[in-house]
Every structure is written in C-alpha cells, then in structure tokens.
C-alpha cells in the first residue's frame, strides 16, 4: 500500500537524522542540510513561478460563479464573477484565505413534507482550512527561536494559542488542531474508495512528512523537553549566517529539523507548489470583462477564415438566383 511506504520513508528519514546526529552529525543535520534545503527551496520556487510566468495567458477564461455585470439594474456577483481587476484580486484572496471554492459544496436533503433544505457539506473545507491555519500559526510561533528578544507579535500569538492554560507547559490549541486535521485529511484519503484509487505516493508522502514533523514537534514540547536555549542558539546562528552547533541538543531535535529540511527541499518539486500557483490561476485571477475591454493574446496567430469574397465567388450563381444581394455582379 502506498500510504505505508510513505510513512516508512518518513520514519526512516527521522531515524537517519536521529542516529546520524547522535553519531556526531549535528553540523550536517543542523547546519549544512538546512542551508542546502533553503537554497533548493528558493531557487526551486523561483524557477517554478518563473516558468509559470513565462507561459503566456492568451485568453481571458475566468470561471464565472455568479451573475455577470450587464444591465445597471441587475446586481452583479462582484466577488464570484468580478468585472474588475480589484474584484478579481478580492476573489483570489477569498480563495487563499477562506477556500471559497471548497466552501461551495452543499448537500440537499428531503425533509418531511417534501421540503428541500440545503445544508453545507463542509468537511473537506473545514479540514483543509484547519490544517492550513494551524500550520501557519505553528510556523509563526517558531519565530521565537529565531529572534531575540522574541517579537511581541509572536508572544501575542502564543498567548492566544495557549488561551486555555491547560497543562504544563501550556498546551497550544494549534498543536492539537494540526495533528487532528492532518489525521482527518489522511483518513479521508484512505477511507474514500475513490480517493484511495486516485491517490499517488505524492499525495501520501507530504501528509506523512507533515505528520512526522508535527508529532516530533509535539514530543519535543510536551514530552522530551528539548533544551530550548541551545536550540535557539542554533536557530539564531542559522539565520544570522554565523552557524554554530551547541552541544547537548537532543537528537530528536535534529530529527525534527531534518524532516522540516526535507519538506522545504521537496516543496518546489511537489504538488505543494499550489501555495504559489493559486495566485496565478487564470480561471480565478482574471476579471470577467472580455466584452468590455480587449484582452490581447501576445502570439495571436495570423489566421484568416474563409473570406466573404471566396464564399460569394463559390456560390455566386445560387446567390444571384435567389436574389441575395452581391458585392460584385
């Protein structure tokens, strides 16, 4: 089964880093590889986006999901069918921040009395949104390792995230949400026969990797208790480009870091590039205004159809006989 291979691979990667660091490879896993991964990421993503940008957008093909702007007394759907660039930008932002299209799923149900009700079918939307936001917050929280003093914003996020003040150290809500959402997305892929049929290694591996990162992170925060001061020393060394590897950091930290390293390096070559791609989607980021304003195709081929003159020439006698006006007699 594909999913098993992905998890096996992640466990293997973690083990390599764990034992590798233990055997004296801290510099490799803590410094060299993260730098390499960062370079791969930046170059890879830039190359990817450039390659998309190099491809032209010959036609304006938004998918219209609401009323067009036409007559002044008909209310247009300015977000789902924007007629201006600003509207299109808002549409993309709504897609990026609220997953608008996934939100569209509805389910109708026949109620007693023959009445139909429409209830949202939002599991995928909720699961995806929960994962992405939890990941974002966890990502931002990690800034505490990279900056001294810890920025107020990060402290504020931490405070909010640990609002319920449960446990010691305080349990972050997003840690739970992140693992739960990833678990849901994985369960969904395995449980639904259709998704199981079409899922590739490339679908399971990122999930396994992210789960590996989340679980190792949770272990480090709540159970193994890494030496935060030394980890921060390592992190600040990395970002200030004066890398140093403090002694006594738990090998689990290196496992965690290595999985993140793999994720970063894998990113540009995987479906994860949807993060950048969503902004460029021609069915979403273009205004539905092609009849109002001319859209230019940079390579518009010089194609001339069957001209009127050719047509009249061919059908001349028939046109004449049936009294249809002609250009030339």
């Amino acid at each position, binding site marked *: 089964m594909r999913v098993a291979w992905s998890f096996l691979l992640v466990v293997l990667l973690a083990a390599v880093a764990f034992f590798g660091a233990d055997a004296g490879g801290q510099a490799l896993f803590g410094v060299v590889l993260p730098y390499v991964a960062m370079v791969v990421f930046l170059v890879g993503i830039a190359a990817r986006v450039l*390659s*998309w940008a*190099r*491809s*032209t957008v*010959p*036609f304006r*093909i938004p*998918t*219209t*999901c*609401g*009323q*067009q*702007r*036409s*007559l002044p007394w*008909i*209310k247009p759907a300015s977000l789902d069918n924007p*007629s201006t660039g600003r509207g299109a930008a808002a549409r993309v932002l709504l*897609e990026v921040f609220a997953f608008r299209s*996934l939100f569209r799923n509805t*389910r*109708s149900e026949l109620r007693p009395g023959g009445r*139909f009700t429409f209830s949202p079918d939002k599991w*995928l939307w909720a699961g*995806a949104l929960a994962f992405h936001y939890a990941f974002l917050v966890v990502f931002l929280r990690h800034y505490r390792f990279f900056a001294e003093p810890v920025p107020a914003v990060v402290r504020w996020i931490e405070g909010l995230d640990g609002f319920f003040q449960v446990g010691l150290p305080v349990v972050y809500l997003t840690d739970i949400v992140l693992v739960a959402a990833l678990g849901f997305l994985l369960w969904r892929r395995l449980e*639904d026969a*259709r998704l199981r049929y*079409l899922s*590739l*290694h*490339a*679908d399971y591996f990122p999930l396994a990797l992210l789960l590996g990162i989340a679980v190792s992170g949770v272990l480090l925060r709540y159970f193994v208790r890494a030496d935060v001061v030394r980890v921060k020393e390592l992190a600040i060394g990395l970002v200030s480009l004066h890398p140093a590897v403090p002694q006594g950091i738990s090998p689990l930290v290196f496992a965690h870091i290595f999985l993140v390293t793999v994720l970063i390096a894998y990113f540009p*070559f995987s*479906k994860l*590039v949807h993060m950048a*791609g969503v902004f*460029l*989607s021609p*069915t*979403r980021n273009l205004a539905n205004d092609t009849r*109002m304003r*001319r859209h230019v*195709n940079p*390579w*518009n*081929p010089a*194609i*001339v159809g*069957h*001209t*009127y003159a050719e*047509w009249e020439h*061919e*059908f001349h006698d028939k*046109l004449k006989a049936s009294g*249809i*006006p002609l*250009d030339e007699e």
Partner: protein
Amino acid sequence: MPEKTRDELVQIDFKPPEREWMDPAIDFEARRGTWSYPAAAKNLRYLGFPNPREWSPTDEDWQLPENWQQIIHDGLAERLNKYRSLKLFLDVCVRCGACADKCHFYLGSGDPKNMPVLRAELLRSVYRNDFTTAGRILGRIGGARKLTPAVLKEWFYYFYQCTECRRCSVFCPYGIDTAEITMLARELLNLVGLNINWVIEPVANCDRTGNHLGIQPHTFKDNIEFLVDELEDATGVRVDPSINRKGAELLFVVPSADYFAEPGIYTFMGYLLLLHALGVDYTLSAYASEGGNFGLFTSHDTIKRLNYKIYHEAKRLGVKWILGGECGHMWRVIHQYMDTMNGPADFLEPPVSPITGTAFTNAAATKMVHVCEFTADLIKHGKLRLDPARNDHLRVTFHDSCNPARAMGILEEPRYILRSVVNNFFEMPENTIREQTFCCGGGAGLGNDENMEMRLRGGLPRANAVRFVHEKHGVNRLACICAIDRAVLTTLMEYWVPEVDVSGVHELVGNALAIDGEKPRNTDLRGRPLAGGKGDADA
C-alpha cells in the same frame, strides 16, 4: 434451507477487477454507445488537418503517423509555453477530490475515470513523464507514465467524453478547469488525426458554407422564408427579415439549429416576432449564418478561423453592432475569445439599444449583445406588450446552459424574461442550477446519436432534477438558452421525463408578445391550443 436458496440464485459477479488507473484498457467494441465515430477523411482533407484516413476506434491499428509520440510530445511542449492555464493546472492539482462527484458523466455512470481529477491525470501522468524531473526519475512511483498506444486510446475515449461544461472548475480550490485540459488534449489528439466526425464535419461545413449543416445560401433563404410563412400562419403577422443587407443597423447571428431544427425554429420565430414588433433595423447573413463554433471542440486555431466570419461580415455590411441569439458555446466564444482573436472591432459602434437607448457598456469592446440582455432591457423599460396568460398551458423551469452560466454569468437576464412572459415559473433545486447547473450530456460535440448511451447517462443528473420539479410542480416545459440543449435535452426528456418539452426562452417571449395586426391567438407558436380556450390577443 437457506443454503439451498442460495444455490438457486442467479450469481453474477459484477465487480470489475481492481486495477490501477495507470493501466489502461478500453474495449471499444464492448463500449459501443459511449464513443463517437471518427472524422471522415474528406472533412479532414477539406480543412487541411493531419492524417486523414478511414478508421474505427475498434481497429487494433489506428493508423497513426509513424512519429506520433514525438508529435504529441512537441505539441504538448509548445502548449505548455503558450497556455499558463495548462502548465499550472498540470502542476498544482493536489487530488483533494472536491471535483470527483461534480461531473455529470461520473454521477451517471460511476466510472471513476470520469472524475475530473482522473480525466486530467490521464494527461498529467504523461506530462510528468516527459516534462518533470521527479517524473523522469521516479517513473510510475512518481505518478508518471509513458505515452503508449493504450494510453493514447484512453485519451481519445475520455477526452471525447468530457463536455467541457466547467462544473468541476467551480468547486476546485485552484480553479483547475477540465474544459481547458480537454480542449488542449483534443488539440494534441487532432495533431495525429484523432478526432470525431460530429465535430469535424460541422467545422468543415461551417468553414465552407457558413453554417454547421452545410446549408447553402439559397437554401438558407428558402428556410427563412418557410419559417416566415409558418409564423404568419400562427400569428397572422408577416415579418420581413432581410439577408445580407448592407446598411442595416444590426447584424443578427444565431445558431443554425434555430432556423433549421425543431424545437429551435420556434425560438427563431420568437426572435423574428420581437424584432418585427419593435421595428428593429437588422439583417441576417447567409455568409455568417452560424453563431455556434465547433472550433471550440477542436482547437484554438479553428475557433479563430470560424469566428473570423462574424466580424468580417459585420464590417462588410457596415452595421453598427451585432446581436447574438440563444446559444451556449457560441457565447463562450463570443464572450471570452472573439475580441482577443479577431478584434479589435473598431469598425463597429458601442452597442446601444435602438428602442430604449440603453448603452450595453458590458459589450463596449466586443460590440456584440446577447439577445436576452437586449430583451430584458426592453421589458424593464416597458417596451413590450406581454400577455403571460398565453403561456398558461405551460409550467416552466429554466435550465442554465453550461457556457452562459460558467463562462459568462448570464443568470438573471433569462429569468427576468421568463418571469415576465410566463405565469408559472419554478426553479429546480439550487445545487442543480446557476453556476452549479448540470450539463445536458451532449455538449462539446458529443450530442451525436452513436454516443446515445453516454449522453443518457450524463444527462441523468439534469433529468433527475427536472423530474423532481415535474412531480412537485407539474412542470412540462424546460426552457434554456442553448441550441445544443434544445436538441439534446429534447431527446433526454423523451427518455427520462417524457412529459416535459424543451424550448428556448424567446419562443415563450414569442407566445406572450402582443403585436399590432395579429390575429386572435388560439395556439402557441407550435400550434398547440392555449389554456382555457383563450382567444383574445391583447392583455
């Protein structure tokens, strides 16, 4: 006893063998009724398209050019550079499955390869193999596969099993549009001579004579005159449409089925009555006698080639602007492609309604107005005398046609018209209309008779919703603004909900429109008696 009972059972194991989707095997012989006949060689020759020959999908050897793999590889490379949509859609899909149950062909057949995501994977897997590093290194593990003859056959089967309706694209978080994938995949198939006759023959006809059916100009004129006679019989009003007349204010372009096939002809009668009642100065063209554009189902170059005629003719006739009839994919082309391909239309004037003075600012560049926009504006300004009671024998619902809904967004205009011309209007359930509308199952050139079973399967979700309003509200008329719909839904209804007829919106306008000089109307445009023996013309 129970054991014995079991023995008596007819035991058939229907379950198909579990096989990975990457291993294709299409048995065309066993799947008759779900694919379309290949294009006749004479049509390809006329158009100058590659590899004309007589062949059948049931043949083992499809007589491809020797270097067909290279041709497709190069064709794909070229299109990846030309179409950001293609490159992006092939890269960013996360296979979340949001689109899986949105395709009418999937819902009607249960065939997993009709899920939009897998339809795209058919091409994506080859893209990975040929164009991505990961695919090249990892091969099958990376979801990549070589373009083998079996894969190509699968492309032919499934890319001519997509109606380019864009419903999946509405639900995709990245806006991946299977219509775009299918259009470009069909371009690739066309490069090696894999196309279907029901697309290519109309293209050839349209290029040569001006319309899909190959109707020559004198016959076109006879047809129009015949319909004018019929209309006079029904209403007592003699309308006088002109053909190829220079100096008219408007050029009116309709899909050819509207002056040729039932039930489109009644819609056409509706247009003529309306334009006559208002005294609009318009002309039809026998040269640009086709609004539809099967180039959309062939290649972008072909769209441009066929669409060329409309502006060319408008310029020659010296009209001010262009009015367009009710048609689905025609309007996708006009709305999203025409100006880009064949514009700028600087020889025309920004369209203004000659009756109400309304400026159609939304068509300021393309200078072509949808007849529903035109009519809705007339009704809003009280320029029409309407007697909706003349449609009281009808209980009407409205089918949003795919392209006008999802590639344009003309949702309210036809509804406004319908509410003004009929008294009994009922909507279908909300997840089957507007931008979520279900396809008729016969768009994109698939509305041919040899493909009937696939059409009936694909039409099931639409028919199912119609049946619901038929049972609940007694609906007996399905109105739409698409000529393919008028043809395909008619058959669909005859199979699934025979009590329901199909018509264009302007047929119902024609029924309700009161005109000076008309005779007492006892029948509708189809010659069917009105409700309650109603005879008075004026409301």
